[in-house]
């Protein structure tokens, strides 16, 4: 069964550093998403991406964040100048239409 994959599974970084979280969505999917979940809290929507552009973003997704689909398979989330409060699980998701979303296993980001 096709699945969304994410790398790395765990990323540790120093405050102020840039990180890039990588995702490989399911191959025939057209809609891509990033969510985050701070430990013990709700899953929060960050951004959706369709047709090579952002379709919607939340208040969390400020200028510190950017997304890119550099080739036909990868979908990345870049966080510039990380802050302590960016520590969370980051989930990538993809969908074939605006319906069921398939989530990846997540990247645990720890900012020290």
């Amino acid at each position, binding site marked *: 069964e096709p699945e969304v994959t994410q790398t790395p599974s765990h990323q540790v970084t120093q405050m102020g550093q840039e990180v890039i979280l990588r995702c490989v969505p399911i191959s025939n999917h057209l809609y891509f998403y990033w969510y985050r979940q701070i430990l013990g809290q*709700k*899953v929060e*929507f960050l951004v959706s991406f369709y047709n090579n552009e952002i379709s919607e973003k939340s208040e969390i997704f400020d200028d510190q964040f950017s997304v890119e689909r550099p080739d036909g398979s990868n979908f990345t989330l870049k966080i510039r100048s990380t802050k302590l409060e960016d520590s969370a699980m980051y989930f990538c998701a993809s*969908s074939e239409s605006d319906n*069921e979303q398939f*989530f990846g296993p997540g990247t*645990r980001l720890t900012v020290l």
Partner: protein
Amino acid sequence: LAKTTQPISMDSYEGQEVNITCSHNNIATNDYITWYQQFPSQGPRFIIQGYKTKVTNEVASLFIPADRKSSTLSLPRVSLSDTAVYYCLVGDGDDKIIFGKGTRLHILP
């Protein structure tokens, strides 16, 4: 997006049927009801979706009364591996998912 209300937590025993009810009094005509499951340290996983009456798949059943102001997710004969958080979502298929706190289901041996 219609607001949903579901129990914060539930306990049950292996082999039992578990029913989790979600209230969505302000559901709109175009809205569907969707349930996701999240195991610890994993991403959410789609379980089932319905509009009205009853929907059944290999994992669960979803019961929706005629007024659609609530819905019940039914998990038959649960096992320890069904311990997870279950999210009830209501929406018209807008691309983003807004998750609530969900119901933390704990299955006991």
